[in-house]
């Protein structure tokens, strides 16, 4: 069975030594060289001092108490934890990627602009959109950008629409992003088969509706077959149709948001385009739009003219900026490398395989973990642990924790909330049949294990079950705050 490494848990601040870091110029400095205004000089700087050897040991040991895609299956639904190819990482180690200053003159950044421009074109083709901005730093940031674009578009048409309609199965970022842009969020219930309820949608639409945000396939992994009617209802009301691209990995080369008549789409390059998730980031959340929304995209726009790339800031209708500079360039380079490596054929094959893997795995699990909604799934599926809960008192959370003992990351749990005891599983295309078979066998074995062993899991990770209630109650967010309390929480 899997056993994660377990190292001592002292903080780097609790370790002793002497730093061996050195700098030129330091020895020859005099006090006259360093003018720090009165009152501004720091008197206390309580940082550790350790030789590099100790620092590297500390962090390598910490890394051994962490689990990534490179360690094994990471079927975290909605997050598309596919394998991150290493050639893409390698490119970002080049000074021609990581050592360019964003304020350099255009003629000194032609390579960077070319990569970004070509990535924009590729994303246009993959999404069926007319123009793309690479600026947003993450999916939610792309959503926020999309909402700002929605606002600018309607204002430009003399309309102050103030509501955004969202299905109850949507990612939490959707309502949060719409609210951040000042919209009132109107949530509509899903139909009995887990899809958009057309009647509820019609009832929610009005002259106040600015946009309808959905993902297709939705968070249950179900393709919204009524997408054309949905688009028609939304557009008839004068609203825009927003595509949450979190689930784009299901449909590349099979359909596009553009073809489905979406107006705005965000991409998660760290999902669909295989860039590493970095323990929570960085990602990248480019936004694609139809032509009529293009004037409002953030500045600058990359322009290719006479074989020379330039940055166009002179765009009077633009929403301005959503972050500094041009986007998470090192992530963009990785995504571009992935697209070139895969090609149009490879991307389609990736989506096909993602859907095949998902349906195959679902089939293996169905007997033990019933499926609340329809049969055919796309790249992910949601099963319920309700049966296990009723029969043996094993909840979705327990299954998730027990999976860790077998060396798997857990699926997403308790989402979407319309499924009781939900386990949302996304195997991705980069897993072999063998891996899926093994995972399915473990899922089944957990269902037949001694319920007490499952409920007290995990047993084989660096720590046992973590007390999250205590963490929230005490809110100790730094060593400084911890020291102030004077006592370790053990006592």
């Amino acid at each position: 069975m899997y056993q994660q490494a377990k190292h001592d848990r002292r903080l780097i601040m609790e370790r002793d030594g002497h730093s061996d870091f050195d700098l030129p110029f330091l020895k020859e400095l005099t006090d006259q060289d360093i003018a720090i205004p009165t009152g501004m000089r720091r008197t206390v700087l309580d940082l550790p001092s350790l030789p590099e050897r100790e620092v590297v040991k500390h962090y390598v040991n910490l890394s051994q108490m962490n689990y990534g895609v490179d360690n094994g299956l990471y079927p975290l639904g909605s997050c598309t934890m596919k394998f991150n190819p290493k050639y893409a990482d390698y490119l970002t180690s080049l000074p021609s990627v990581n050592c360019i200053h964003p304020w350099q003159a255009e003629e000194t950044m032609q390579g960077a602009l070319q990569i970004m421009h070509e990535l924009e074109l590729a994303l246009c083709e993959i999404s069926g959109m007319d123009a793309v901005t690479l600026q947003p730093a993450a999916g939610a940031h792309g959503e926020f950008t999309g909402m700002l674009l929605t606002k600018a578009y309607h204002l430009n048409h003399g309309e102050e629409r103030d509501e955004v309609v969202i299905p109850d199965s949507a990612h939490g970022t959707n309502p949060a992003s719409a609210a951040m842009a000042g919209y009132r969020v109107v949530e509509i219930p899903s139909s009995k088969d887990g899809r958009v309820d057309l009647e509820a949608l019609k009832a929610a639409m009005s002259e106040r509706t600015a946009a309808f945000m959905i993902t297709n396939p939705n968070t249950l992994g179900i393709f919204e077959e009524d997408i054309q009617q949905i688009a028609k209802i939304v557009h008839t009301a004068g609203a825009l149709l927003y595509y949450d691209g979190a689930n784009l990995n299901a449909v590349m080369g099979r359909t596009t948001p553009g073809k489905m008549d979406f107006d705005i789409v965000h991409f998660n390059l760290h999902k669909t385009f295989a860039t590493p998730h970095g323990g929570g980031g960085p990602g990248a959340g480019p936004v694609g739009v139809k032509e009529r929304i293009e004037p409002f995209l953030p500045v600058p726009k990359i322009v290719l003219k006479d074989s020379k790339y330039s940055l166009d800031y002179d765009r009077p209708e633009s929403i301005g900026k959503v972050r500094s500079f041009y986007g998470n360039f090192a992530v963009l380079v990785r995504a571009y490398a992935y697209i070139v490596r895969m090609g149009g054929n490879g991307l389609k094959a990736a989506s096909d395989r993602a859907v095949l893997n998902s349906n195959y795995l679902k089939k293996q699990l169905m007997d033990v973990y019933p499926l609340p909604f329809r049969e055919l799934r796309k790249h992910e599926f949601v099963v319920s642990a309700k049966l296990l809960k009723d029969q043996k008192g094993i909840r979705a959370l327990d299954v998730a924790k027990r999976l860790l003992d077998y060396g798997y990351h857990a699926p997403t749990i308790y989402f979407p909330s319309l499924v009781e005891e939900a386990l949302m599983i996304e195997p991705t295309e980069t897993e072999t049949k063998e891996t899926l078979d093994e995972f399915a066998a473990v899922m089944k074995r957990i269902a037949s294990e001694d319920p007490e062993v499952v409920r007290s899991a995990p047993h084989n990770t660096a720590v046992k079950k973590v007390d999250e209630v205590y963490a929230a109650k005490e809110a100790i967010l730094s060593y400084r705050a911890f020291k102030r309390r004077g006592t370790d929480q053990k006592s």
Partner: protein
Amino acid sequence: MIDGRSHDTQTHAARKVFNHDSAVTKRVVMSQEIEMLAALGLSSLDELFVDVPKEVRIDGLNLPAGKSEIEVLRELKAILAKNLTADDHPCFLGAGIYHHFIPAAVRTIVGRSEFLTSYTPYQPEISQGMLQALFEYQSYIAELTGLDAVNSSTYDASTALGEAATMCFRLNEKKRFLIPEAMSWEKKSVLSNYVLGLKMEIVEYGYDPITGELDLEDLRSKVDRDTSGIYVETPNLFGVIDTQALFLKQEFPEAALVVGVDPISLGVLKAPGDYGADIVIGEGQSLGIDMNFGGPLLGIFACRQEHVRKMPGRVIGMTHDSEGERAFCMTLQTREQHIRRSKATSNICTNEALMAVAASVYLSILGKEGLEGLAKVNIARARKLMDLIGEIEGFDSPAFEGSHFNEFVVRTSTRPEKLNRLLLKHSILGGVPLAAHVPRLDHHMLFATTEMHSDADHEALLKALKEVA
């Protein structure tokens, strides 16, 4: 490699190419696929997509076919080679992004695939490594800023500022937010987008034309009863250490004080928490993160402990496991989008966690003496360079009398853009023209210098400037 025009020229047949080019890949994938399809009672992949209505189906993607790794690397490296880099050209650009030294150990740790290929630590028991590294990041920033509560990152300084402004509204439900006129135009633009939803009013206050510090008189005239927050940067856009920041909390106790910092400068400068800051933000790129053409970066966000439940973003808390051993987990998640949905304090989900780990490792390698020394070297090197430029005819340097950190404003008789073109002929990446940020400073530019510049680099710049003059 990818060309917009190819859309029309590629043949239909080319679009129908199904699988990877590599015959080996194709064979392995196909045999597995057939077996799996059979298990589903299907005979083709197309049958998995019958739920996609015919009218919205496409027949593959109109992109070039896949390439081998050799070709991909060869072609991308050739494109990237068109960039000039600060690696082989002395670069005096700053204004938010700085070319600092990154110890090799930082790359070693950040490249650990257990960190690199993990995601947000939703399952704390199997993610203690990332959680502890992020807790240590929060701890470092807490110590530097003098505030106990730190989140595990926002996207960059500009979005941190946007989040800070909306947090000020949550603190006091007021809508006026004051910012310096002398601030990056990009930050101003991002801020205006972040406060759009709340309809907050952004008001600019001026700077003292002699010292380059903020104009306290002007600020007084603009603070009113509806003022939610005051934002001040130190060092500011001009590279000036703004001593007026020290008095703002006393002067305006009703408004939330938001201080923007360069974290390296905090090696020698007073922690803003010690002069009353409610929120401290900053660009963490200086802390061991590559310039990366401007991204990924690291938005620093810290606040007073009493404000913690109003703060945006992921936070890591210390706790214990079922056996009483120290452990870490994400906490205060009821503020966040996946729980609170439209009532969340922010929509942020994916952040810049790996960059926070880089900052943690970087600060660990430098240690107390290293960070303090680095800050001193930056101050001293900038001081030396600004004085030497000031000795050249046609340059007024530094243009402001305040104390500087690692960049400074130079007034030039030559237009900054022209000057930069001339410097580029000497293989030097010049300074940032200021007019884009502060329009009336059209003959001014910012020069930044750090520990990366040798004496020879400084001499090369001075020699080139003399030739221009």
